[in-house]
């Protein structure tokens, strides 16, 4: 599964994207964030306050409880501050 990181999520994890084999037991966006945060200190730091991290599946905003089944690309990022 392709996972993208933006802004300070990207900076904390230290990479903009990666391909990861996610176990089938990880079913939702929130579970994926929890699973990632156990991969190392940099991930734990990025997801220390999971409520402020937003996500998109295949370039569409999703909620923490959204299923990641069939997702090709999942992105994690802080609240948007454009314009």
């Amino acid at each position, binding site marked *: 599964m392709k996972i993208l990181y933006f802004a300070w999520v990207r900076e904390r994890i230290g990479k903009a994207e990666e391909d990861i084999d996610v176990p089938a037991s990880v079913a939702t966006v929130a579970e994926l964030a929890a699973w990632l945060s156990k991969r190392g200190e940099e991930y734990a730091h990025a997801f220390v306050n999971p409520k402020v991290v937003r996500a*998109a599946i295949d*370039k569409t905003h999703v909620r923490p409880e959204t299923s990641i089944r069939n997702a090709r690309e999942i992105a994690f*990022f802080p609240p948007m*501050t*454009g314009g």
Partner: protein
Amino acid sequence: MSFAVRIQREPFDAAAESARLTKGRTDIGAVVSFTGICRADEKGEAISALTLEHYPGMAETEIASHVEEARTRWPLAGVTIIHRYGRMVPGEDIVLVATASAHRDAAFAAAEFLMDYLKTRAPFWKQVELASGKVWVEARSADDLAAERWNEKSAAE
């Protein structure tokens, strides 16, 4: 009808973009243009530059879908949105929203709706360069409230 969304690193010519919306037409009575500009301060602190990061692909699609939503809400003759990414210094234009309609109420409302969206929901992230270093700008709750009011209106209709 001219509906265009561009995400680009390069500066844009706000005047030329607004002029393009009305060129050769005589059914447009109102053009509203909003230009967002890099200020030399962010929440009271001096900044020397800002950098906008975005999610390529998602930004274009999301903004275009909000332009479509604006078209269903108001009778619009044209919309142009340009959002830059990369590093900008104070005084540089960051974003342009230009709307055209027969009447001013639709042009004003659509421009505000689209700007509220861009500020809160479009996948862009702003980092500023303070004297003490670079920091990511935190989302302002005032901006979220401004975007929320469109949902309330929709729910009330």
